[in-house]
């Protein structure tokens, strides 16, 4: 089955759906028409640019440019993960912990995938590396930002309970365990849920894309399963590293709760 090419008129037709949504928003005074329009325009512009960049990247076949693109993606992911946090660590930690954890986890998972399972030639071929990294980073970013946000807000909310335990001579680790568990669970839940519901409720985007472009569904499924494992691996590792690093930063050698290292809420 050949790929059915899309024309710009087809896209414009689909965009009409948003006009319906926008009209409803105006009619019901929801105030969502502006954010909806901005998000739609951003989506179109960003994706078009990415299309151009990917085309160039695939054509140039340079390992350094591929690496540079991967780094830019990581830095954006770190920025986004930080922006989603209500209470941030002061200084570079807010950015550094999330970015470092995601970078380490994504690198490990990507090396595993590209050198064992997929093995493109050369192994860093941007056509494989960049889309895979995009999926892995996108999910790790959600997990890490959820986990860090939960950790810091729960530590602030539970301050009296945590410090009461510290004052009674319990270790910081014991006092923080419920908060830590809560953060890890929150960070990992979307990944676990999406694995559990996939195929039954939702057909994943990548698999749908492969099927639409004419790939045998059973091959597309195998790719999707691989991706799911990569995503779960990177998210789990990233969430764990980021959360433990943040706990370390929120405490000190004398096992105090250092909420003074969180920025004031704006």
């Amino acid at each position, binding site marked *: 089955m050949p790929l059915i090419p899309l024309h710009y008129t087809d896209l414009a037709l689909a965009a009409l759906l948003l006009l319906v949504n926008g009209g409803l928003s105006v009619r019901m005074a929801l105030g969502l028409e502006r954010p909806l329009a901005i998000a739609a325009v951003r989506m179109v512009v960003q994706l078009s640019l990415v299309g151009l960049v990917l085309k160039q990247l695939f054509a140039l076949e340079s390992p350094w440019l591929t690496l540079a693109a991967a780094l830019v993606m990581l830095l954006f992911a770190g920025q986004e993960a930080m922006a989603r946090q209500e209470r941030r660590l002061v200084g570079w930690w807010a950015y550094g912990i999330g970015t470092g954890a995601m970078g380490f986890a994504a690198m490990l998972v990507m090396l595993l995938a590209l050198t064992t399972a997929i093995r493109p030639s050369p192994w860093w071929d941007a056509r494989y590396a960049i889309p895979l990294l995009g999926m892995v980073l996108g999910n790790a970013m959600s997990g890490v930002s959820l986990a860090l946000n939960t950790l810091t807000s729960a530590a602030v909310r*539970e301050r*009296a*309970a*945590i*410090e*009461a335990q510290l004052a*009674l001579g319990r270790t910081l680790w014991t006092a923080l365990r419920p908060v830590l568990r809560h953060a890890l669970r929150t960070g990992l839940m979307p990944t676990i849920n999406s694995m559990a519901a996939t195929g039954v409720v939702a057909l994943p985007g990548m698999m749908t894309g492969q099927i639409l472009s004419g790939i045998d569904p059973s091959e597309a499924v195998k790719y999707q399963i691989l991706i799911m494992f990569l995503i779960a691996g990177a998210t789990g590792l990233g969430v764990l590293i980021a959360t433990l690093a943040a706990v370390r930063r929120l405490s000190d050698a004398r096992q*105090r709760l250092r909420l003074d290292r969180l920025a004031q809420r704006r």
Partner: protein
Amino acid sequence: MLTVERLCNSVLKPASFHVDGGECVAVQGPSGAGKSVLLRAVADLDPSDGDVRLDGAPRDGMPAPEWRRRVTYLAAESGWWADRVGDHFAVLDPTAPNKAVGLIEALGLPGGALDWLVARLSTGERQRLALVRALVQEPRVLLLDEPTSALDLDATARVETVLRHEMARGVAVLIVTHSPAQADRLAKRRLHVEAGEVREL
């Protein structure tokens, strides 16, 4: 027993004082002067500089949890981490609930309070149960931050009786109180805190 030399941090100016075993020292001063800050610094819950010792043993020479178990801070607002009151005792020490019942009754609450839900406690009940929670561990020094602020006269008197009993056992008490009468009843010496400066009166 508890000796403090040049204890200071971002709020406190260098403070030096001591509290002997069986003695109670009242900490007084206007709100926001740094009374809680002083107690938290002694308990090592906030970073501070200076030399703090218990019976000559330096604070920094022992692990922080061990120090806080001996020199226990009781916050003005108590913190709770489990649903049931009794669960806050069982985890610390398996025999703690038994020791707790006697103290709970001495403070005017029924021994069955261990089965109560924390969410349904009144402020005064919380305050007394938090004191019991600290006492069952038999700390050497008590750092009490307004321990009777939510209590009526009868309950306040009961708390003071329990504290005198602790002092008779050799426990040193540092108590923040806004009540001059309470300071008179319990303490022979006073520390006055104002704008982070600690002076002995």
